[in-house]
């Protein structure tokens, strides 16, 4: 009697393991069913191109981009000894240095202003976030006019004060600065919106208890607002860095990399090399440099951010 029972038990166990395995396979298949569209597209348009770029960077290519001669690291040697690419790197770093702090400071100032509970503040919020809805192409057209040497507003304003006209986009000394100003303007909308969201999620009771203690506005700003905002701030800084390194549109519209390559940022340089000079190999080497810069930056930011950021 007990033997029969034990036998039955064993059968049950076997059945149980089998069912469980099928169940596991089923759930895996189901998971893949939901994820496969994304995974397939990521593979085709993201991971494969990443490796292909690396592969291409070791070759010379013909005009259609097919590989011809394996040259090892020669493309890398060539770009790092080319004054044009070194210049492009320098310009890119300067551009980042101008635009990232500029964007963050202006947007933070606007977000703090627009976070006050005042009547009609909604209109100001809408205006401050509006540049997010303005495309690079349109924004560049707007600024192209402002920078215009004779009819442009900036020079007309200078003229009123008796200051000599500036070649905003044509003077090598000024061009990068001008492009940076217009870029900061374009980025304000998005950064402002994210920062305002961060400010609004700060618990109001923190301010109430500070008010009871009679804390000043400045004290509240530096002791409550900024520390509590740090995760959001950290996020927008990272995004701004990455965006700045990927800048292309305004360069293409406003200066085409000129004058004297003073605004030839790295993505524009890749574009010229690949799609105007048809040097896909050399352009790929530049693209890998861009990829490495962004990777390192993200990692540094994560490491530094972890310590400084105040997480709730």
């Amino acid at each position, binding site marked *: 009697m007990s033997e029969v029972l034990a036998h039955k038990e064993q059968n049950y166990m076997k059945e149980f393991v089998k069912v469980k395995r099928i169940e596991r396979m089923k759930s895996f298949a189901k*998971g893949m069913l*939901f994820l496969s569209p994304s995974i397939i*597209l990521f593979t085709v348009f993201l991971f494969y191109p990443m490796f292909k770029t690396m592969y291409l960077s070791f070759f010379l290519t013909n005009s259609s981009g097919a590989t011809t001669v394996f040259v090892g690291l020669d493309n890398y040697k060539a770009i790092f000894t080319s004054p044009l690419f070194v210049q492009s790197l320098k310009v890119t770093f300067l551009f980042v240095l101008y635009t990232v702090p500029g964007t963050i400071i202006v947007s933070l100032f606007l977000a703090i202003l627009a976070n*006050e509970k*005042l009547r009609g503040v909604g209109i100001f919020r809408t205006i401050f976030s509006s540049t997010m809805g303005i495309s690079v192409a349109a924004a560049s057209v*707007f600024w192209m006019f402002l920078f215009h040497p004779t009819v442009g507003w900036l020079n007309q304003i200078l003229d009123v004060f008796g200051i000599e006209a500036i070649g905003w986009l044509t003077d090598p000394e000024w061009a990068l600065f001008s492009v940076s100003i217009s870029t900061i303007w374009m980025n304000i909308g998005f950064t402002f919106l994210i920062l305002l969201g961060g400010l609004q999620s700060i618990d109001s009771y923190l301010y109430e208890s500070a008010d009871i203690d009679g804390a000043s506005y400045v004290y509240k700003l530096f002791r409550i607002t900024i520390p509590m905002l740090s995760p959001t701030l950290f996020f927008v800084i990272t995004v701004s860095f990455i965006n700045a390194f990927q800048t292309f549109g305004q360069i293409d519209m406003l200066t085409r990399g000129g004058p004297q390559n003073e605004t030839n940022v790295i993505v524009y340089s890749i574009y010229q090399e690949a799609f105007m000079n048809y040097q896909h190999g050399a352009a790929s080497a530049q693209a890998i440099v861009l990829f490495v810069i962004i*990777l390192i930056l993200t990692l540094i930011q994560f490491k530094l951010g972890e310590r400084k950021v105040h997480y709730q």
Partner: protein
Amino acid sequence: MTIPKYQKIVFYLLLTVSALLIFAPALIAFSMSFMSNKDIMTGHIIPTSITFDNYVKVFERFPLVDFLLNSLIVSIVIMLGQLVLCSLAAYAFVFLEFKGRDVLFFVFIATMMVPFEASIIPNFQTIRDMGWINTYTGLTLPFFAMAFGTFLLRQSFKQIPKELKEASEIAGIGDFKFFLTIVLPVARTSLLTLGVYGFLTSWNMYLWPLLTTTDDTTRTVQIGLRQLQSQEQLNEWGVIMAGAIIVVLPTLILLFLGQKKLQQGLAEGALK
């Protein structure tokens, strides 16, 4: 809590000045689009007489309607593609348990570290070799899968109680039905946010349409504007501005309508 009066005045003053400065470039362009060439050249701020000539001219000389239509198609297709793919992926990460899920989640995070600009050369070759230059497929397909959108929806799917899923399992409701009839309706606000965001960014896309359109058949309005700016004589500023205003109008309206949602949604998806 009341703010002292003098402080209020300072705030309003700062807000107004900032708003004027921020809005000035767009406002000037808007005003110029209604000005005659003579007004612009003599440096007027407000048009002496309002004229719609610039708008008439820009539509006459340019296939602007085609460009607008192309941009609309491209943006809607990308938006829908992103909504479908991101919601499916987010569902898998929240409600399905299977081996390798965490690894795949890490893969999704890793995609955020690869800048599109760095992989643009092979992508261009792929689209070209598939014969997808000047097609909507070539313009839209590479952007359907998106890690950011997946995270944003995952965040909102997580709010749905797990008990609901268990109950539906007992009732014999399959995953796909649960996804369609319960998860999607509950998360409609986040879907809307992602939709608006997807539409905005697609409408404003620049580099990719520049590379993958070589004629007017599928050219988007942004590249059209580039063409307009480089072809027009420099003294035709009114016409160029009219073109630019038409380009930004759809996205600005969308932004004004969805600003609040977008702000909450982006902040939620960005953090955590």
